[in-house]
């Protein structure tokens, strides 16, 4: 009975995740796409998006829901990128400078967003979403009228014969920002996989020996790493990624080090006093306040961190392989939506999220994204449906996650009160 309940509650928590796994498998099969192609596309999108999705974790833990206002962080980054392009600084220095500009800008924006969200407690998710739309208007004003006229820019980036920034900016060639980080070094996917499996297995054993984790967890960790590595030792599987069939999959080393660094940052901050405050505020503001925690300040800090991280994530996105152009007026538009949907797909909810959920979510969400078009043309003979399906998918996931969350909390609240049903069951 108890096990059944546990299973039920597990399924409820991760229903969106399982749905996506099932759909992904279905789509990959029906689309008829080459596995090598799907895998390489997937890897590309993970490189691009993982950082932004990871930026959502801290506000979720601080009880502020999905911070859709990361869009505004992306705008801060785009201001940085625009200036860097205008000043003609290329390569890694350009990226670093853009990141440096994003830090104060993103902090300022985050501070303002946080202040505003403190005025609308309980509606942060929807509030940040609307705030993102609102900021879009301000951003357009800035890029169309203020840049180029009040703030001087190089004529390379402005519209010829008028003020305002060009619609599209090229990042390749002499601008030199394309793959500025991705391109530094590559490591074959298989090698990276073996190394990470090895490290994972080693770490779990060390943790077990230091008595930090149970024997069961240690065994699960070791067996999982061995299994994953083992699967790729099978020639048929390995051939899909090692280049003997199609392209060889390679990981951009620095990008992944940065992604792992962010994961480490997220988990490290949770072990500090500040992290404890995030968690306390996220779980119960009244109790946190009663024990002397400055609730509003803690929430503002969470949003500031998230906004800056999202900005840096947007820089990572823009420079990544396969992008190459900067859609000046549109690049930030879907940032919040896609990242929010991705983390929810990974099994996170409005009030809990982990690094692993963010990464798994990005993986699953984009695996559907890649295959939707081909799958729909295979199934319905019309690839346009796939286009619609993408939008349907992202909004649908968010709506579903919100509904499930509301339903669960409602039920928990009821269960917390006097349990009438149980009492009567005992009586009869």
């Amino acid at each position: 009975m108890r096990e059944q309940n546990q299973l039920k509650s597990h399924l409820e928590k991760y229903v969106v995740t399982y749905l996506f796994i099932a759909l992904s498998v279905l789509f990959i099969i029906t689309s008829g796409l080459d596995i090598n192609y799907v895998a390489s596309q997937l890897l590309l999108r993970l490189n691009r998006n993982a950082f932004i999705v990871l930026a959502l974790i801290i506000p979720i833990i601080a009880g502020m829901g999905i911070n859709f206002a990361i869009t505004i962080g992306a705008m801060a980054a785009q201001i940085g990128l625009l200036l860097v392009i205008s000043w003609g600084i290329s390569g890694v220095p350009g990226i670093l400078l853009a990141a440096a500009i994003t830090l104060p800008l993103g902090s300022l924006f985050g501070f303002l967003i946080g202040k505003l969200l403190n005025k609308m407690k309980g509606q942060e998710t929807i509030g940040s979403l609307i705030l993102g739309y609102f900021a879009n208007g301000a951003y357009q004003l800035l890029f169309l009228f203020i840049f180029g006229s009040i703030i001087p820019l190089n004529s390379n980036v402005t519209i010829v014969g008028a003020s305002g920034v060009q619609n599209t900016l090229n990042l390749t060639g002499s601008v030199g920002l394309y793959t500025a980080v991705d391109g530094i070094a590559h490591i074959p996917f298989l090698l990276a996989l073996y190394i990470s499996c090895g490290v994972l297995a080693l770490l779990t054993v060390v943790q077990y020996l230091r008595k930090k984790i149970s024997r069961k967890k240690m065994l699960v960790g070791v067996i999982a790493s061995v299994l994953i590595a083992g699967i790729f030792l099978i020639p048929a599987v390995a051939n899909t990624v090692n280049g003997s069939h199609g392209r060889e999959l390679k990981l951009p080393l620095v990008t992944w080090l940065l992604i792992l660094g962010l994961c480490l940052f997220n988990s490290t901050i949770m072990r500090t006093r500040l992290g404890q405050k995030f968690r306390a505020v996220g779980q119960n503001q009244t109790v946190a306040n009663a024990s002397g925690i400055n609730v509003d300040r803690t929430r503002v800090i969470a949003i500031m961190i998230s906004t800056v991280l999202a900005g840096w994530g947007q820089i990572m996105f823009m420079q990544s392989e396969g992008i190459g152009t900067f859609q000046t007026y549109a690049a930030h538009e879907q940032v919040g939506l896609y990242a929010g949907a991705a983390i929810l797909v990974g099994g996170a909810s409005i009030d809990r999220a982990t690094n692993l959920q963010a990464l798994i979510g990005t993986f699953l969400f984009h695996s559907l994204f890649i295959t939707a078009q081909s799958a729909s043309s295979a199934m319905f003979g019309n690839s346009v449906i796939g286009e619609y399906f993408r939008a349907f998918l992202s909004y649908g996931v968010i709506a579903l996650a919100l509904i499930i969350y509301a339903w669960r909390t409602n039920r928990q609240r009821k269960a917390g009160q006097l349990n009438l049903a149980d009492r009567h069951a005992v009586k009869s």
Partner: protein
Amino acid sequence: MANEFILEMNHITKLYGSNAVLKDVSLKIRPGEIHALLGENGAGKSTLMNVLFGMPVIHTTGGFEGEVLFDGEKVEISSPMSAMEKGIGMVHQEFMLIPGFSVTDNIKLNREITRPWLVSKVLGKDLEFLDTKTMARDARKALDDVGMSIEEYTLVSGLPVGHMQFIEIAREIDKSGMKLLVFDEPTAVLTESEAQQLLDVMKSIAAKGIAIIFITHRLDEVMNAADTITILRDGQLVSSFDKSSITPEDIAALMIGRSDEDGMVRVEKRTEPVGDTVAMSISDLWVNMPGEVDKGINLTVREGEILGIGGLAGQGKLGIPNGVMGLYEAAGDVEFYGQKLPLGDAGAVLRSGLAMVSEDRRGVGLLLDQSIENNIAFTAMQVNGDFMKGFLHQKDTGAIRRYAEEMIKELDIRCTSPAQPVGTLSGGNQQKVCVARALAMKPRFLFVSEPTRGIDIGAKQLVLETLVRLNRETGMTIVMVSSELQELRSVCDRIAIVAEGKVVDILKTDASDTAFGLAMSGVKSKEGVGE
């Protein structure tokens, strides 16, 4: 030399506007003693504690008069934080615990033990790592002190309610320099054996020299644990004494006692005795109303009587009308003239001839933006289909107006016209509109919940007179729930006292103060009239 008293509150007076909620109250507590603070709702216990903790509600309403001496020194306590720093702690009635945190994390909340590292030295203390080992060791010690054997790393969410109270206490005694602890109704949610354990823990804390203020309504616990007792009534100090010099009966009488006829309302006496016909019989009613939970109410209401339901706030007296009327989740059997009432279906209950004047006037009772006449007619239109005309069932505005005008005259509702929005009326007149609305249903049976809450004396008199007149003239059965015992004693035939979700006793209106006081503390006296 150590001071004789750890805390002295001298001549405390607190006004809210022109209304004095504390009048010249003094409280003296010695180190290591358990001091019980007793009184009915509204006696001023919580205001006195708010003063002690420097709660914002005190300072934003003009502060207080009198002085507070802590450890012999005159102190200004400006905020709960400053109270905490001085060594005054509170064990809350509602748990201040975070369910998703471990026991240790809760005990150490915002007092985490941390160790610095490279980054925190640059960016500040907030980034110091938690020293989980030391935290767990401290928590273990505090848990042992309160006699809890639970593991310090378990999550609070999985623990039984009774344990949470002890974790709260463990958190308070873990704070260094704790000198005075306030326990606010600590045993309310505990089982009998847990309550006994808690009293033992209190005694052992007191034995270490920490003074305890013990707020409770359970007299047996007072007699068991307290050394000294202070009783407040209507914001005034009744008396302070050693436990050995007094009996629970005396305490009960002192808590209730009004030798004068204060607060009594003169009403028409009943001329004919109430018959034996049973109008409603409630058996084993459980109501899930937040803050007013009922756990098995048994009660019989006779046709034509006015039955009072009294008791302290939060004990479940409000749950009875709300549960029967279907406003909150309820279970059990309620029979109305032999017919079983469907619980949870407000429409069906209303159609069967019951009506209710809610205690939540502005929330449940009235549509504040609507006119008086619409408010009066609304429920009758919806439920009974009254005030409708013609083939399409349009609203019969003429009939509504006539009825509203009749009611305005009858109940003396002071207004400019029946079209005036009720939101602009005074509290007393709003209450009369609520009564008029219930009457428009032509009920056989009326629940009236806190009918005089927040209205002035004149309006109070009128509302009560109206109820009595309705009862005498039409024979309508009335069940009146009220926190004001005097009011119940003036108009009711019998009074049921509810404590901890159950009917403790049913008393005559002329029963002694002691009997009422004991019943409110959950003790049945010999004077009960039973059914």
